[in-house]
């Protein structure tokens, strides 16, 4: 279980290297990095404020990791999420999955991101020249999560 939430930036290459160091049973590593975009529609974003629910956040991310491990044969999983004020271009989230084969690593990383978007208690507020604006949840994120439901 490797889940971290905090204000600090992360080094993608160092995280991937640490996770696969000294191992020869990993054939595929997939990483997803989310970045702050500078525009939302026609509006310029000065910064993104990320709020979360300490305690529940870590529990929710750990449960998402556990569910991914139940569904795919994964050697390693890493989920890092930043909170606080982030400028456009800044890294927000890193998900890394490692498996013997690429399909499991790809699917698990996409699954974790889809679940994280709708199940981990983070909220984004955009700081713009017209003031702050809470980001609305997107229907496409709910649809993305629904793809993974097991009938």
């Amino acid at each position, binding site marked *: 279980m490797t889940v971290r939430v905090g204000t600090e930036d992360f080094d993608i290459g160092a995280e991937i290297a640490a996770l696969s160091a000294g191992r020869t049973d990993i054939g595929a590593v997939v990483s997803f990095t989310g970045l702050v975009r500078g525009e939302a529609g026609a509006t310029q974003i000065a910064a993104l404020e990320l709020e979360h*629910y300490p305690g529940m956040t870590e529990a929710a991310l750990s449960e998402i990791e556990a569910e991914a491990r139940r569904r795919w044969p994964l050697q390693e999983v890493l989920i890092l999420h930043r909170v606080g004020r982030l400028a456009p271009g800044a890294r927000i989230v890193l998900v890394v999955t490692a498996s013997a084969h690429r399909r499991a690593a790809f699917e698990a990383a996409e699954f974790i991101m889809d679940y994280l978007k709708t199940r981990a208690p983070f909220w984004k507020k955009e700081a713009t020249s017209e003031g702050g604006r809470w980001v609305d949840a997107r229907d496409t994120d709910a649809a993305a999560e629904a793809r993974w439901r097991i009938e």
Partner: protein
Amino acid sequence: MQVLYFAWLRERIGTAREEVETQAATVTELIEELRARGEAHQAAFDDLTALRVAIDQKVAGFDAPIAKAREIAFFPPMTGG
């Protein structure tokens, strides 16, 4: 019990956390009591379809029992990642 608010709900109510003495059996009953606290609470709980609730840090339904709960949190749909 502790009642927590996040995101615009926190801003609208003006606090992140309040101690509540209640006999409410469900989340819905608790919301009725909270709405009686004043205009800010009433506005915040105006549209329940825009809200989610967690009981002791687990997402729950509005009809969930809360008799043994220590912490109830209200927030809008999550927008992380």
